[in-house]
């Protein structure tokens, strides 16, 4: 349980709101999409957190986490003329620029926010079609 990462989670969600718009994503979810989710949608979740940093006396100093951002598309949910994986990359890039390099976290300071690496994309099968998960990892350090 991490109180800082919970604040970061809410800050990410709030700052991601411009991604939900016509021609973009239908919704943003944390960890799991809702049962009624309609593609294309975005999911983010904290992954592989780094070591928690402490001050003397074991007071919490900083959390250094990797967050996984995923855009889920399929051939039925992208604008005409777009490949699903192409649209996924476009949305992911837009999401990255929407977040920028800062977050507002009450009581803490985000000292680093930048894309850490791309994560391998995943294809899953549903019926006779593929679902594309396009992803990247973002490093967020909060003091």
């Amino acid at each position: 349980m991490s109180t800082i990462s919970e604040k970061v989670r809410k800050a990410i969600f709030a700052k991601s709101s411009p991604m939900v718009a016509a021609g973009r994503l239908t919704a943003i979810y944390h960890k799991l999409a809702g049962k009624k989710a309609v593609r294309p949608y975005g999911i983010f979740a904290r992954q592989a957190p780094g070591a928690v940093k402490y001050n003397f006396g074991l007071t919490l100093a900083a959390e250094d986490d990797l967050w996984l951002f995923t855009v889920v598309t399929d051939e039925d949910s992208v604008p005409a003329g777009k490949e699903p994986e192409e649209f996924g990359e476009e949305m992911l890039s837009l999401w990255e620029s929407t977040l920028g390099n800062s977050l507002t976290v009450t009581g803490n300071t985000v000292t680093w926010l930048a894309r850490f690496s791309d994560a391998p994309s995943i294809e899953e099968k549903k019926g006779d079609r593929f679902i594309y998960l396009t992803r990247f990892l973002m490093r967020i350090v909060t003091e």
Partner: protein
Amino acid sequence: MRAAALFNKIGKTSIPRIGSRIFPDRMTVVKQNYTPGSGGGRTKTAPTNVHTSIPCTYHANSGEQVLIGDKPDRKEEYSVSFPSHTPAGVRINIDPQEHRLVVAARGNEPQKTFRMTAPLKDKAGMMFEATCELEA
């Protein structure tokens, strides 16, 4: 040879006629078309109807909850049965990877789109049974 001729006649003439009377539903076989994308993928283009008003019947086989695309989803497997020939005697050629079966609405039953998930079961050239997933 007599058996072959009999099966051919049953498949081409008798079952399509009987099917059009006893099968409660009518379906359209729709082909989803694609064009190569600019990045090596593919993009959807307008679908085309391959066969229309095919008599058919369907039933559910199984269902399960699944997690696809980080989303709690459902998988409902159905079987759709239909004659191998149209009432006009034209063989219904199906490619499970390209074609979808769209069963028309009937009474309170809404239209259903079935996506085939396995090779077509060919019953001696007289009937086909398609294993499908109901589109949610």
